[in-house]
């Protein structure tokens, strides 16, 4: 500073550690404040009283057994995408290309369904669909990864561009298949149901939910307990450290992004093969972006992503129900979601930092200079994200 100002009364200090209960309390506090604010806004916008609003939200998400199933399926899909993106994020690779990777997966599945659905036996069709969607998803993860590994290309920007290239490829595929008229691919193979993913336990929603459960558990162990998971976490903490201990950084980046992309491709397969049975450029409905926030909100812990996804789906369904009941636009849900996200994002600050009154300064300095082991440092640094 040019001239000496009066000393500030308080300043921010990084927390060294924080107990889980305090952390949870801060997060829940933020969510509660956000929900109260949402209730106030809803009351003002619709004229309903908060209790009615609450029940309308519950009705939108859990009002009938069909609504419960759809809520569960949507939660599962959001959860799956969040999980798919997580390994890359733990590596501090900002893959915001989930949208594109899902679309490519969906494109692969739709391509096989439309071209081979009726000429090959159904087992082969499904196998081809799985292979092609996972391959295309993985390819869309591989491109930014290899550029990052070789030339250190900014991955946020490259994955963003790949989203729109994928969107245009799907748009191209659609007009190529339906050159005249509506340019909409209706339900694919509606009569033969070729390439439709099987129903489990008599429910068409079950497959997605089951895959979500399996992948949540396996990804948790992959990231936290496997050698590859350890490698990608070290790369995330510090590339220099990773090189020093003999990890091939470039290969880890490429491998992790192939996994991330392949899992997104799998979601595309589920959307096209099991949920919608059609393909459009907006089949992801922005979930690739929402999932980034889910993964980050949950601190990259797959199990915490379950309630986080559920919260978002619940808010979305509830707000839609509310808005259509009073004749307002359905985007109301996005406004409420945005507000909740702002609060959760802001609350992160109070988890990582504390406000210190001036006289504490000496004490904090001595705390800061403490030496820490590698695992300790890594734990702390990771919390910064």
């Amino acid at each position, binding site marked *: *500073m*040019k001239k000496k100002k009066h000393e500030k009364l308080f300043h*921010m*200090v*990084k927390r060294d550690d924080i107990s889980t209960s305090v952390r949870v309390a801060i997060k829940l506090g933020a969510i509660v404040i956000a929900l109260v604010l949402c209730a106030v806004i809803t009351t003002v*916008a619709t004229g309903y009283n908060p209790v009615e609003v609450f029940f309308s939200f519950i009705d939108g998400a859990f009002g009938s057994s069909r609504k419960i199933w759809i809520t569960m399926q949507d939660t599962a899909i959001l959860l799956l995408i969040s999980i798919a993106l997580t390994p890359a994020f733990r590596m501090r690779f*900002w893959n*915001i290309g989930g949208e594109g990777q899902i679309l490519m997966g969906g494109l692969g599945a739709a391509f096989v369904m439309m071209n081979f659905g009726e000429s090959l036996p159904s087992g082969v069709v499904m196998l081809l669909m799985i292979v092609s969607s996972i391959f295309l998803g993985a390819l869309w993860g591989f491109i930014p990864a290899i*550029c990052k590994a*070789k*030339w*250190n*290309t*900014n991955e*946020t*920007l*490259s994955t*963003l*561009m*790949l*989203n*729109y*290239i994928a*969107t*245009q*490829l799907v*748009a*191209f595929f659609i*007009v*190529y298949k339906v*050159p005249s008229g509506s*340019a909409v691919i209706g339900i694919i193979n509606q009569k033969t149901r070729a390439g439709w993913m099987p129903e489990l336990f008599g429910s068409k929603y079950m497959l997605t939910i089951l895959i979500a459960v399996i992948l949540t558990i396996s990804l948790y162990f992959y990231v936290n307990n496997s050698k590859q998971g350890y490698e990608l976490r070290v790369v995330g903490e510090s590339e220099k450290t990773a090189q020093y201990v003999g990890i091939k950084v470039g290969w880890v980046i490429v491998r992790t992004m192939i996994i991330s992309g392949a899992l997104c491709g799998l979601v595309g397969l589920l959307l096209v093969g099991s949920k919608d049975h059609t393909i459009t450029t907006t089949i992801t409905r*922005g979930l690739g*972006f*929402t999932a*980034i*926030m889910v993964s*980050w909100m949950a601190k990259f812990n797959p199990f915490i992503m379950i309630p986080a996804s559920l919260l978002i789906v619940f808010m979305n369904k509830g707000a839609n129900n509310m808005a259509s009941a009073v*004749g*307002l*636009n*359905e*985007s*109301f*849900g*996005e*406004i409420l*979601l*945005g*507000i909740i*996200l*702002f609060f959760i*994002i*802001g609350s*992160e*600050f109070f988890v*990582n*930092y504390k406000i210190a009154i001036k006289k504490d300064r000496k004490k904090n300095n001595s705390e*800061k200079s403490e030496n820490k082991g590698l695992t300790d440092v890594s734990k702390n640094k990771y919390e910064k*994200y």
Partner: protein
Amino acid sequence: MVGIIAFIQGAIGQGIPLLYGCTGEILSEKSGNLNLGIPGIMYVGAMSGVIGSFVYENSVAGELNPFLAVAIPILCSLLGSMIMGLIYGFLTITLRANQNVTGLAMTTFGVGFGNFFGGSLIKLVDAQVSSISLSRTSSFFTKTLPFSGKLGWFGDVFLSYGFLAYVGIILAIVVAVVLKKSRVGLHIRAVGESPTTADAAGINVTKYKYFSTVLGCMIAGLGGLYYIMDYIKGVWSNDGFGDRGWLAIALVIFTIWRPAVGIIASFFFGGLYILYIHFPMGMVMNEIVKMIPYVVTLVVLIITSMRNKRENQPPASLGLNYFREER
């Protein structure tokens, strides 16, 4: 000849919103803030202006006051995008939240804001109209320079736009000069390259980050306003603005963080966006042509990182937050 002139006019008209978004985003990124909320902020900028002029139009029965008809939407738009910028700045600069996540949340919120009011404004203010059509206010925005019709093709190509188009071009030049030549620009760039060094040199990092991020958001918001008030003549349709905000971010990379280059580049992108309207080549080719801006941007991004020239790189601390006590 007539076809080509119409195409150039269309390309520039399409390019101006991108130019605003690009200028704003460059200003923000130069200070180290990768603002992925720009698409949402442009929606908010557009919608705030629409709300302002909608309320004004519906409260005045007779002739509109030309000054108010222009000033109210602009001020509302600036206010809306300024609030968005302050939210983003507070979360990322003061609270040091992750910029990508914050930006995406801004986009979710902003697009939702635009579409919600787009679909509900009439009901909310109990107006007696069937759709949001602001032709009366819009006519002040679309007014061309008085002598544009008399100068043949020169007038059509260079003078036939509403005043916001020229403001956009001037802003891009001003931002380019300020960033490159002035002390303020030097400080902004220093903060974006290395906040630690800037801080040590006595530059107030927080102040400059706030300044350029919020100002960048306000400039971007005007892009939304131009689109709605001038380009499509005041008729709001939900999701009508489309993915132009993302295209503006692509443009930032395409121009390698140079606002003045953005002027030409935005017209180029705008031209690609509407090429299929003026030169019909079949639906299939259209979708391929629409892909070109993104492919070209990706290629530029990869090539600049391959060549690794220092002056062509993103600001070194782009996307990272600064906390003084963490060295």
